């Protein structure tokens, strides 16, 4: 026993702080090229039978295409077999003209079994261009995600530009400060999501979701239930109705919980690939459990995104977001957060200058 412990300890000391082998792998025809990379404090630390790879990297990439780049997603992978080996980094709201260099920051901890080198590989999952065209293998479904972020970005930039146009600097400032208030007011509960059946031993009950309607949403949930036991909800099941005139292939249902103090939080998002013709109904079912920090009093849900068969999407308009309850639940877009940060850093003149670029 004593000799085994000694070997184990020696192995840990030998493996701790090991330098990390890394590889940035872009295809030959990639629209972006690596200019430089700095892996700083990245390291590998052995724990039991695995390496914990602490990846802290700053990459500089150049847009070598002929189009403006609006978004990029990189996959960062230690291994593809066991959970914990894969992560990703996305930069929405980019504005990289041909020839521009832009930074990408990676901060992730990943897992890799001992028995191989402590290595991490960075690959290109997707690039979104200004004309919404896409390049990349899209293994992580980054095309859809970045397209939605870009649509939100355009919506929100248009909103703030219109504020400036109609209400002047004061109106724009008021709008940005409202956004800051909105961002700070979104409390985040502790949420755990597990696949499969719950192991909670508390008696469970079927609870119906209260359905929030966004008036112009082309798809509306018509019913929703989940099983609740204590502070855990699982097996959500929704029936949805396509009230638009185009076939729907994708949607996201946002799951809202209310605790016993009456506070509401956006707990999780349920993306679903569906096939629902105009005027028809469909089902969305998930075999997953959500655990919260406090007992759940009630739940609500709403459709936050719809993808059509023709490749276009619907997202809530700014008019919908003027509803106070939805505004508290739906996170501001990355672009809105970027613009508010510019305001905090550079003030109103800086923000106005930024808006003029688009």
């Amino acid at each position, binding site marked *: 026993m004593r000799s085994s412990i000694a070997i184990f300890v020696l192995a840990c000391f030998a493996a701790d702080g090991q330098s990390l082998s890394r590889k940035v792998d872009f295809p030959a025809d990639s629209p972006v090229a690596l200019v430089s990379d700095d892996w700083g404090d990245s390291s590998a630390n052995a724990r039991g039978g695995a390496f914990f790879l602490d990846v802290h990297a700053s990459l500089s990439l150049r847009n070598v295409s002929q189009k403006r780049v609006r978004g990029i997603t990189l996959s960062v992978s230690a291994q593809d077999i066991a959970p914990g080996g894969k992560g990703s980094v996305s930069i929405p709201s980019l504005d990289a003209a041909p020839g521009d260099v832009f930074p990408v920051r990676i901060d992730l901890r990943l897992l890799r079994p001992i028995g191989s080198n402590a290595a991490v590989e960075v690959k290109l999952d997707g690039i979104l261009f200004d004309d919404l065209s896409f390049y990349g293998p899209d293994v992580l479904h980054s095309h859809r995600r970045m397209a939605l972020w870009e649509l939100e970005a355009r919506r929100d930039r248009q909103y703030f530009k*219109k*504020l400036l146009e*109609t*209400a002047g600097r*004061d*109106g724009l400032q008021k709008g940005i400060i409202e956004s800051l208030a909105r961002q700070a007011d979104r409390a985040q509960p502790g949420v755990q999501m597990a696949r499969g059946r719950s192991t909670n031993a508390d008696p469970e009950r079927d609870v119906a979701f209260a359905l929030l309607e966004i008036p112009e949403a082309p798809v509306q949930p018509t019913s929703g239930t989940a099983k609740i036991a204590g502070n855990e909800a699982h097996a959500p099941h929704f029936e949805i109705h396509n009230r638009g005139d185009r076939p729907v292939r994708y949607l996201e249902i946002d799951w809202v919980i209310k605790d016993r103090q009456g506070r509401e939080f956006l707990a999780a998002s349920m993306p679903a690939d569906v096939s629902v013709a105009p005027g028809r109904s469909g089902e969305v079912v998930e075999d997953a459990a959500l655990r919260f920090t406090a007992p759940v009093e009630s739940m609500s849900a709403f459709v936050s995104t719809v993808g059509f068969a023709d490749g276009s999407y619907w997202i809530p308009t700014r*008019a919908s977001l*003027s*509803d*106070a*309850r939805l505004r508290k639940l739906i996170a501001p877009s990355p672009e809105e957060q970027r613009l508010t940060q510019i305001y905090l850093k550079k003030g109103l003149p800086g923000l106005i200058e930024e808006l003029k670029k688009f």
Partner: protein
Amino acid sequence: MSEAPGSTGFDATSLSSDQQTRFVNENLRRVFLLIYRIVGNVPDAQDLTQEAFIKALQRQDQLKDLDKAAHWLSRIASNTAIDFLRRAGRVNFSDLEDLPEPVAKSREESPEELLLRAERREYLEGGLGVLTDRERTALLLRDVEDLPAEEVAARLNCSKATVRSHIANGRVKLRRYFERRKS
């Protein structure tokens, strides 16, 4: 309150917290009511009142004389309310969630007195309600704030002749409203 030699009023460049509080307390109700009568609802009036005071107190360097402070504050308040009405006509900030009105505290009045007072208020408020925003604003600035017509014109960003037209039309409409109610 610190005073520079030979000056009246307070040192506007460095109001203490107490001075700010006093300034707010002395003017809050008047400003709130002015804005409320212009915009027509309590929640917006609250927001705009706060906005007006913050604007005013952030420009303390413009405050030269305490005697003129109330007038200057009114100007900021009415401008804030008027700008709000302008914006409300172009940008839709529809709020789908109704906010409850604060509940009144009970007073020592008989039910009949309460009913009469409510009826009289409703009767008078109904009169203001028949006016357009500009007519109502012009009347409030002229009759309640006692501003000369030239200043009302400046605040409404129109000519003196237009202001006189708003005032005249507003008063005629009110007169007809009261006559109809009486009959």
